[in-house]
């Protein structure tokens, strides 16, 4: 693995610590955080930053009738566009209920695409 060094503005509280996170030969060094939440955040941002992806899909072949959808889990940041491409390929027919799985294992991320609203 390559060495990494990043300055990460912590978003866990309003303080906004500018945390310096480093990885050198499998040793992680995280500095300038004022609490353990900041340490956790910086560590995940350095090693595997993840985000939820949310979008909408067409209902009943009608592009003007949208169903909100999201990933069931946060996905790696660099997979967001791959997830979006997969979402664009699907449609649903009514009825749809909140939480219904629409795509399993989207873009190989282990997250599913689920309905975040209902069709009514």
């Amino acid at each position, binding site marked *: 693995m390559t060495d990494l060094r990043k300055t990460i*503005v912590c*978003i866990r509280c*309003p*303080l*906004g610590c500018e945390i310096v996170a480093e990885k050198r030969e499998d040793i992680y060094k995280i500095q300038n955080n004022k609490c353990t939440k900041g340490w956790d955040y910086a560590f995940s941002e350095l090693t595997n930053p993840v*985000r*939820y*992806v*949310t*979008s*909408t899909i*067409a209902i009943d072949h009608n*592009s*003007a*009738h*949208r169903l*909100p*959808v*999201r990933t069931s889990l946060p996905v790696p*940041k660099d997979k*967001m*566009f791959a997830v*979006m491409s997969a979402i664009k390929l699907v449609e649903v027919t009514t009825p749809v209920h*909140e939480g219904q799985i629409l795509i399993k294992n989207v873009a190989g991320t282990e997250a599913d695409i689920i309905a*975040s*609203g*209902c069709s*009514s």
Partner: protein
Amino acid sequence: MKKYSLIVVGGGPAGLAAAVSASETGIDRILILERGRRLGGILNQCIHNGFGIHYFDKELTGPEYANRFIKLVKRRGIEYKTETTVLDITGNKTVVSINQEDGLMELQTDAVIFAMGCRERPRGAVTIPGTRPAGIITAGAAQKMININGYHVGERIIILGSGDIGLIMARRLTLEGKKVLAVVERMPHSNGLARNIIQCLEDFDIPLLLSHTITEIRGKNRVSSVMVSAVDEQYQPIKGSEREYECDTVLMSVGLIPEIELGKRANMLLDPRTNGPLVDDAMQTSIEWVFACGNVLHVHDLVDYVTLESRKTGKAAAHYILQRGTAEHYAGVTYAAPISYIVPQKVALGEGQAELFFRTDRVVTNAEVVVAGGQGEINRIKAARINPSEMQRLVINKEKINGLKPVLEISIEGVS
């Protein structure tokens, strides 16, 4: 004439939470009147996640957050009418409203809760020279077009203002394959939450141009470009700093204003700082039987806080309806810069605690928030950092307010 105990104007997060809370306090015959096609209000178009972190300890999307309350409303048998517009409230506790099915309705009630939310400041509210082509829209309108109606708003986009909706739309448009050129903010700090700056702009390398503004919009039928300039400390454009951005769309995210027309028509007292009603700590307005909560009262940054405030309002309105006594003596709340507003504007004297919310007009670091009540200091709270984008909360023990000089003075000391 149909008779209700409580009519809630607006079926968004504030109205839903207030109605549920009033119902839990023992009020039946509650009616929610909603202008939109469905309950949920603005949450229906906020398909992104991040709602409910404080209230549900979970990251929900807008529709998911709304559905939790819609389910409660239905389970409690609270009556509601959608696609219904309230036209007026009148002095004899009557709500005048209209819809296609019932026509014009005059509804008698014991109390009303205003939960109409807010609307966006449009282009006309921030003077920008230039032509008036198509392609200039508010960020929230674009959000509705994309997320509810399935339209595209443009291909190359500039966003004016760093409010949260603008930031959210920067990410949404980018994920949809559109090019967001920059977010342009006149102030030296962002008006959006840090979380949104990082996850909506930095994640996608979208530049945030602080202390910049749009000085001209060009284009005949459709926007073709905008001129962006740096501004000095008086927000005046700096000559020679102009840069042209070719784009077909300008999104405006330049602030929200409480939608309080109904209050104005009823001569309700308003606070010129919030543009919302003047209330006491039970969220009672200057019209005794009308309460207010959510973004019609003051613009919140998180829906979680809207829910908490609205639950309190629903309970207070229920106590009013059940005639559990109203306050007679109040302490006025005073403050000075850098505090830009405080809600509520007055606090009823008596027992218990009062919750106050305020914002600052600038970033404040290493300061102390000092609460004084008439004859002396009540409380002093250290504040390592206060961001203008984040609403601040103060809880005050009301018994400490001295009745001889009933005033509550809030100040910030040690501002650098």
